Every structure is written in C-alpha cells, then in structure tokens.
C-alpha cells in the first residue's frame, strides 16, 4: 500500500484516494473534431516511468490533486493542487462540505 502525499492532509494510504486519470488537456468543445476528442476520451500514454496523474482524496479533504508518480517504483516525487487553482493569495475555492462520499460514505 503506497502512501500518497495529499497537499492538504499529508501522506495517506492510497486506499483513501480515487484515481481519476492521467492529466490531459480537454480540447475546446466548440472547435474539436472526432479524432482529437476521442483521443482525449480514450487514449492514455501509460508510460513506463514518470507520469502525472489526477487523484481525488475521497476519504479525506475531498480535494483533487496532481501527483507525479513513477509507474515502476511507485515513487511519488511531487504532489500539488490542480493547476487551474486561483493565483496565490486568492484562496477562494469551490469546496464541498462533505463528510461522506454521500453515495455510501464508503471507500473501496
């Protein structure tokens, strides 16, 4: 069981998190074509080595985070809040007052 460092909660068992996926850029929905959009939907790089992933701390602070993880060693060398966060100083954030996952309150 690896530890995943949550920027808010510190290192926690990975079972507290839900894997969201490799970080990828969403194409402009008004400009995109089938090829580009379906690549965004279904194609993953899945590298042997360092990869940048989004995780969701579902059993903790209920925040999304970006982690750089090595797929062979499971080493996590960095984790941070999503890039789209407001600039520093402006900490206004959309945040859920969740205690539970609200779909069972359970993590699996």
């Amino acid at each position, binding site marked *: 069981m690896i530890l995943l460092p949550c920027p808010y909660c510190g290192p926690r*068992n990975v079972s507290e998190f839900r894997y969201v996926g490799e970080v990828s850029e969403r194409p402009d929905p008004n400009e995109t074509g089938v090829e580009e959009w379906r690549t965004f939907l279904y194609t993953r790089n899945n590298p042997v080595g360092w990869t940048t992933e989004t995780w969701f701390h579902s059993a903790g602070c209920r925040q999304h985070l970006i982690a750089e993880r090595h797929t062979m060693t499971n080493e996590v060398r960095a984790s941070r809040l999503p890039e789209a966060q407001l600039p520093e100083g402006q*900490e*206004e954030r959309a945040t859920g007052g969740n205690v*539970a996952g609200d779909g069972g*309150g*359970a993590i699996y």
Partner: protein
Amino acid sequence: MVERAPVARSPIAPAPPTTIEYGWEISARSSDAELKITDCTPLAKVLVLAPMYGELARALGVPFGRAARDTHGTLVVGSGPGEWLLLAAPGTNQAVGKRVEVVQDEGLVSVFDATHGRALIRITGPRTPDLLAKVCAIDFADEVTPDGAAFRSSVAKLVTDVVRDDSGGARSYLLHCERSSGQYLFDALIDAGDEFGIEVDGFVDPGDRGV
C-alpha cells in the same frame, strides 16, 4: 393543528432506558466504565464554508486540521480546506449560525445547520487509541495527533471526521459521519471496543461547560 410536539431522533438507536430531553429521544443510561461511547448527535452542528484565509477564517481562529473551543464553549473544528464544523449545546444551532454570519468576509460564505445531516459519537477512555487502531489507519500517537487534532479519514471503511478532544485529562475522540451510517459506525466502534470493555453512556447536555 398539530397535536404532538415533534421529537428529534438520532440515527443511532438509543440504548434503553430512553428518555426525551432537549427535544431528542436519548438513552438515559449512565456508565462509569473505563471506556465509554456516547451518541452526541443532539449537539448543534453548524457547517461553515468560507475562504481558507479570509476574515471569517481569522475570526474562527482554527485552521484545517485543528479544533479548539471559542469563548462561548463552542468547539470549532477545522474540518476541511475552507470548511469548519461548529459543535455546541443542543438547540443553539441558530445562535451559533448567527454569530458566524455577522462576520464580514469578502469571499463566498455559506452557513448550514448540519445537525440533521450528521451523526456524532464520542468515545472516552485511556484505551481509545487501541480501539481506533482497529478501525482506522491513522497514527493516534500524541506526536502525530495530539489533543486538538482534527482530520478526516476512513474509519471502518466509512469516511469520518475525527477530533481528538480530551476531557478532564481523559483521552477522548469525537467521530462524526454522514447521518445514515451513524448506526453502522456506532456498531463498528462497539465491536472494536468489546475487548476493552466498552459501555454505552447516555448523552448529557454539556450546559455551561460548552461542548
């Protein structure tokens, strides 16, 4: 046109004998066991969402990960990034909410009465860390989670807010989960505490002492 005064009920079935106090049906049981578990759901629970470092955050004075009592005896818990949970005596929901709402904050502020949406359980006794070690992967050592520590994690596979809140020198924890799983969490804690002789203790209004 309504004859009966509404009775509020916790999701946790009260251990008999039961009584009605503060408008809630509660257990009238009293225990002096070393390890006790109490359903504290009747406490007023007010949820505050506000900017992490704004005026309101300063007024509340408790960061994410910590819990402390304010001058009114309300336990202010930094329960998430930009999220606070205020625990106070039964029936004081509105008063507590109003005290928060008067604070001017540039950011978006939301104040909810979460009394009905959550279950709240207190366990007290020197062996509470041993009990919790059976249901939660967090380290309950003093250096990691001292008195006043607050965090959210998985307890018996249920997402739960945990607050270390020692009372009168005795180790004590508040566990706080989404209402519908309150009975489940209570049962899981009793099962885990069985080997340490856990007993149910009825809820008593903390009164002037605060929560």
